[in-house]
């Protein structure tokens, strides 16, 4: 009997407010990298899971992004709190790359209300060596280096920790723009910029 489910399925969170589907090519790109670099049994396509649905619990790692204000409904807030309490991990990326933007301000508030307050994640955290090594912490994005958004290079990611494990990982670095391209175009890069996505997946699967 083969496995009923692959070990990993990339899931994108669909929430009631905002533009949850603003980076539609990120799932395929991360799936490609996980399949390319690891032996993890990964589903070839991602899924979209409503944040307020019980189906959320089928996917212990969920990706959430957007540009617009985030307002979790009561059901979404309750579901997300329970999801993290059971061991699920939410990866949130600010598609605006703007700490003064509406997504950032409202997402921080919504996450604090559902799970807990975000805090800086040390750059020597296990996340940065779970597969590829990132000794300087989170890799910078071209959007940061080009001065777009808030014109900042963010030194840290933020996280809500349960014990020493990450429940919510929050990025202001705009990986949603950085990874939002067709996987075939990776051949034009000297270094694959989605490697950090592999670290997030491997960390979620092993820690």
């Amino acid at each position, binding site marked *: *009997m083969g496995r*009923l489910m692959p*070990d990993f399925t990339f899931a994108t969170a669909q929430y009631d407010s905002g533009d949850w589907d603003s980076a539609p090519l990120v799932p395929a790109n991360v799936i490609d990298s996980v399949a390319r670099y*690891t*032996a993890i049994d990964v589903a070839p396509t991602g899924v979209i899971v409503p944040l307020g649905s019980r189906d959320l619990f089928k996917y*212990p790692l969920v990706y959430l992004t957007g540009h617009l204000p985030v307002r979790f409904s009561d059901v979404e807030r309750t579901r997300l709190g329970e999801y993290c309490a059971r*061991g699920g991990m939410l990866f949130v990326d600010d598609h605006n790359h703007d700490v003064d933007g509406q997504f950032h301000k409202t997402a921080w508030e919504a996450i604090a209300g559902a799970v807990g307050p975000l805090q800086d994640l040390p750059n020597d955290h296990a996340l940065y060596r779970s597969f590829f090594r990132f000794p300087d912490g989170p890799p910078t994005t071209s959007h940061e280096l080009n001065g777009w958004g808030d014109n900042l290079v963010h030194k840290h990611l933020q996280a809500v920790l349960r014990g020493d494990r990450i429940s919510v990982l929050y990025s202001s670095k705009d990986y949603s723009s950085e990874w939002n391209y067709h996987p075939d175009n990776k051949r034009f890069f000297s270094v694959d910029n989605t490697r950090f996505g592999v670290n997030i997946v*491997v960390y979620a*699967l*092993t820690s």
Partner: protein
Amino acid sequence: MPSRAETRGFLELVARTAVVLLLAAALWRVVQARRAEATPSVQVRLTGAERAATRDSLAALARSGVTVPWSGEIPALAAMAEGVREPAPATRVSVVADGAVVLGDSLGTIDSLAAGSGSLVVAGVRGALRAGAGSAMARVDPAKHVAPGRVLVLGRAGWESKFVIAALEEAGWSVDAELAVVDTLTVRQGAGARGGPRLGTHAAVVVLDSAPRAAAAIARFVAAGGGLVLGGEGAANGAHRALAPARTVRAVRPLSRAFDGVGPMDALPLHALEALRADALVLERREGRIAAAARRVGAGRVVQAGYGDTWRWRMEGGADAAAAHRAHWSRLVGSVAHVAVPPDVVTSPGTPRGTSADASAEGAPLAATVHALGAASPVATARTPTGPPLPGWLGALILALLLAEWASRRTRGLA
């Protein structure tokens, strides 16, 4: 044909012999009565609530020559306490009794159990545990809790490994882990996660996948006393077939996909265990198929649990699913974990290691009383003959026989 004189002579001989025998019996009764008068006797009535010291005193009295017949209806009751082999300090109390049992410790009543047999895990026991059933009282001294060593989890990167590690750590276990991401890369957690399990470091190893990893080291570890849990896909791991309770496994699909049914285990895929070894013990079944089994190998223990994707139970199950998943894995590991008994736990020959001699002595009042004093007497009486050494009916019988024999001889003209 004998003559009448010969017949009467024979009857006279019979009468004389009977008189001699009856006199001998009377003499024996006299001697016994004298001996009984010389032997002291203590008749006691017991309720089962006596402490071991009281019972031991009576046993010493009996062994010193005093007759100690006892009576009383002590209810059948046995209680045993053992330290739970899991990190959280607790005591598992097992009780068998004819009637309802009330458990307590030096602080007061803890709980009660219905008649029959049952067990209870109690945390924070103070002093000796008391189990009362009717008039009987069993007292057991919980074995000193010994925190077992670390647990090594071997598997591949995936939700099952992640959530098994999380469950064990939440239950209090210290976990080392080796999780394969690719053939050439293994994610390691903990200082002891390299080179397989070692008895000085690890209490148990959990294998969650089918990779033939550290098979020789695991075999040595188990033989020396370590525990092995073959869980999920690990239950079908051929590298550990010589240790596993089942020789073969058969993959079975879940009975349902949702966790809102009666049993959460029905929603999990199962590696059903088949061709069990003769020394294996079945622990759990699902629809007649064997889901979990255990056996001893050398000085160690092995549990093979065929349920896979148990992480789905934790994530998708009901409100208590995370706690139930945590308890499930902690129990599996605890059932095989190696625990070194410290030297200050007093043991005596015939006493199971890890329990104090006093606990075994008082854990079963009726059994201990019978062992010490023998079976109860229906009515507490001395076992020596009573009454006058020569009863009246016996004297009359002897006199009648002597007179008959004398009269017979006289009528025959003999002196």
